[in-house]
């Protein structure tokens, strides 16, 4: 990564930087270290990083979409397990991807740390003496003056005015500027390390959880209340969670109602109240996408929404076996939502129902479907099951799936029993097993609550890196020498420049300096 080092390596004699020296273990280690921290290795590692990142965008990734991964595994029985072994379903946490970026960062550190000391020494160094043959430099001009006089003082003033650092020598001045290029370069690389530390910090000490809250219900921040909780490795649990609580008072969604983008989401708004601690006063907050709520170091995001039909199930003995909202999960852009209603306490038989909530129900060729995401014509389309009461096992069960292994589907007139209800309607269950009432529906919101402590460090690191990058790209280091010589009795002033950046060239700077000197010397 360091051109300086490449030059040193190239200058260090016949030993080619590709040939291992005939040395012992330490020699080998040193050779390997030098290989690792060379610019060519850094380049190769950069390409590998780019190449290694690609499969993660082409192959489904477990952390992003686990359902797609299981679909892929089912569709490719031979390729799937191979991909799995290679870590291709979780590329960015795989050993080989980690190896690439860790090597890259070791290479980076190995490159910039020695460069830092070289730079710090170079900072104090004075501009060097002029080389013997100035006329061999890329920029060179000469002119004659009647007598030497104070031309070197004039040149010193002129170069200082041009923000060069100037050193006087016998019969010459040396000048240099553009020290900030290397400073920028170093800042860029060190800041990248800083940003990575920030990212690592966040993933160690942060947490992230999601929870589905039906409008009207509340949530208090403890691990048990989450549907899904991912703590960082160094996260210790409930003690680290700020003790806030919130209630979802209302949720409103707006959708495009006409045109080719009909049904596209336009606006989501959730009205919350929250308390920072159990004793704190209740405060309101309007939660929207792009406007998370910040409470005590954690952020609350609005990630999604859906419908929760409110249903009352009465069993065969006339008792209420289930009552309340049951969140259904949207299956398509028009919010055809799938869900289940479980009444394990129903007697004499336990009851279970599964099916769809359709916010804008239309009878299509394949049966009822939803045609629009908003609730223009809501309907509940379900089927029911019954079974023998089971002893409580205490095993956790998904609230979105019905375990049908010990259940039998209701039939009516020899057909599978199905029903469709509008809000307020009821249906009796076959065989006098009870009844189901579609009382209405609520909306639910999916909230993410998370804390990523290192994010400001990461942001600051990247911003500093950009600052450094600009320094390294736009600062133009160069040297200029002015020398007065006596040539066969004539006094000759030589002005020469050396471009130390790789790209710029000297432009007409030498010409401008000569012009200014001539003017001040009046020749």
């Amino acid at each position: 990564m360091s051109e300086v080092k490449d030059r040193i390596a190239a200058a260090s004699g016949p030993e080619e930087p590709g040939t291992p020296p005939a040395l012992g273990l330490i020699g080998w280690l040193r050779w390997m270290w030098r290989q690792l921290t060379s610019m060519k290795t850094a380049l190769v590692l950069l390409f590998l990083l780019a190449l290694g990142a690609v499969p993660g965008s082409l192959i489904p990734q477990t952390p992003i979409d686990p359902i797609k991964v299981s679909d892929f595994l089912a569709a490719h029985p031979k390729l799937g397990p191979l991909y799995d072994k290679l870590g291709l379903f979780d590329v960015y946490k795989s050993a080989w991807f980690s190896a690439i970026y860790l090597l890259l960062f070791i290479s980076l550190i190995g490159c910039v740390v020695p460069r830092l000391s070289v730079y710090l020494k170079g900072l104090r160094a004075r501009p060097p003496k002029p080389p013997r043959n100035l006329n061999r430099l890329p920029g060179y001009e000469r002119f004659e003056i009647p007598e030497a006089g104070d031309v070197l003082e004039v040149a010193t003033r002129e170069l200082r005015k041009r923000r060069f650092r100037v050193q006087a020598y016998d019969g010459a001045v040396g000048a240099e500027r553009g020290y900030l290029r290397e400073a920028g370069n170093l800042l860029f690389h060190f800041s990248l390390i800083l940003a990575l530390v920030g990212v690592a910090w966040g993933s160690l000490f942060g947490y992230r959880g999601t929870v589905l809250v039906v409008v009207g219900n509340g949530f208090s921040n403890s691990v048990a209340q989450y549907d899904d909780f991912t703590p960082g490795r160094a996260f210790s649990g409930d003690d680290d969670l700020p003790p806030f609580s919130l209630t979802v008072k209302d949720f409103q969604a707006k959708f495009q109602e006409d045109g080719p983008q009909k049904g596209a989401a336009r606006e989501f708004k959730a009205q919350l109240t929250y308390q920072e601690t159990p004793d704190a006063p209740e405060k309101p907050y309007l939660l929207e996408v792009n406007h998370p709520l910040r409470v005590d170091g954690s952020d609350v995001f609005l990630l999604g929404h859906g419908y929760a039909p409110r249903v009352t199930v009465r069993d065969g003995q006339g008792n209420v076996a289930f009552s309340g909202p049951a969140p259904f999960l949207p299956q398509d852009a028009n919010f055809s939502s799938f869900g289940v209603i479980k009444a394990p306490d129903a007697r004499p038989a336990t009851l279970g129902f599964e099916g769809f909530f359709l916010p804008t129900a239309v009878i299509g060729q394949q049966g009822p479907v939803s045609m629009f995401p908003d609730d223009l014509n809501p309907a509940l389309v379900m089927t029911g099951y019954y079974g023998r009461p089971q002893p409580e096992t205490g095993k956790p069960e998904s609230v979105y799936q019905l375990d049908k292994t010990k259940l039998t589907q209701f039939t009516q007139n020899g057909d599978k029993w199905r029903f469709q209800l509008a809000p307020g309607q009821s249906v009796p269950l076959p065989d006098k097993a009870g009844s189901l009432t579609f009382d209405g529906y609520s909306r639910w919101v999916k909230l993410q609550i998370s804390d990523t402590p290192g994010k400001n460090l990461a942001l600051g690191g990247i911003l500093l890196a950009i600052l450094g990058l600009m320094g390294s790209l736009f600062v133009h280091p160069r040297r200029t020498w002015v020398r007065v010589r006596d040539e066969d009795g004539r006094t000759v002033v030589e002005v020469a420049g050396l471009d130390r950046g790789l790209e710029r060239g000297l432009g007409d700077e030498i010409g401008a300096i000569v012009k200014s000197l001539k003017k001040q010397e009046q020749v």
Partner: protein
Amino acid sequence: MNPSTLASLSNLLIPTATIIYGLAMLAHAVEWASGLRVVKKDAEAKVLVAADGGEVPDVPADAAPADAVADESSVRGDQASRIGILLTVLAFALHAGGVLTRGLAAGRVPWGNMYEFSITASLAVAIVYLALLKRQRLQWLGLGVTFVITAALGIAVLAFYVPAGDLLPALHSYWLVIHVSAAAIAGGGFTLGGLASVLYLIKSRAEARAVDGKPMPAALRRVPSAESIDAVAYKVHAFSFPIWTFGVLVAGPIWAYYAWGRAWGWDPKEVWSLVTWVVYAAYLHARATAGWRGRRAAWVAIAGWVVFLFNFVGVNLLLSGFHAYSGL
């Protein structure tokens, strides 16, 4: 004017601009072709000279016609070049008007979907090109630039068009302005840099052959030296890279954090933005590495541009993710 008038005005301006960019491209093609005649006459003149016994300096009468043709041809080339630039400026004005009216019609920044991003990003290419045209004497890039803009606008109009409309909730943020404009400007620079790198490869090859005594292809004579093309390519890349860094590693993650609850989630667009960043970082390193300067570095720059283009078009068409625009 009401939104629908503005929208139809935009729908008139953008295709018109596309056609005029196409005409500018033709003018630049004529500019390139104008060199071809020189070679033919040159060759004839050489044959004549050889038949005369190689007394070129003594027989100015023989050499004169070839020079005259070269002069005339270069004048024609300059004329075609000027016409091309003039047409580009005209097309740019219409193009800018089309983007502006589109934004006014929708009541927001004009980059909420693929169509709008295409017309805005190609406007960014035109802005960067015209801004640098005078200072860096970029007219030799005219053919490539007008080709890219005509193609981008043509595809946008024919394949990506959607009527002006409202935005998804996640796009209701001022980061839409910052993030996307940074990506578009950097993309405009990368496009110029990629074109310059292609031309650098062609010209440096021709120069290497010229050293071996083969004639320089006539069309390349109007193009500056490989070295100065390389310098221009570096300058546009150096200009674009920090902006790209800001756009995809600062503005993008901040907005993603607010909208989606995470700063970085390996969404396909994020992955390809990072790949683009890494390839251009490799380009800058390659230029500072012995053995990689010059042609190899130029290939890296071209690879960066290809990755950028794939990120801009391919990711939306082929892969799914959070960066999906409604209605494309």
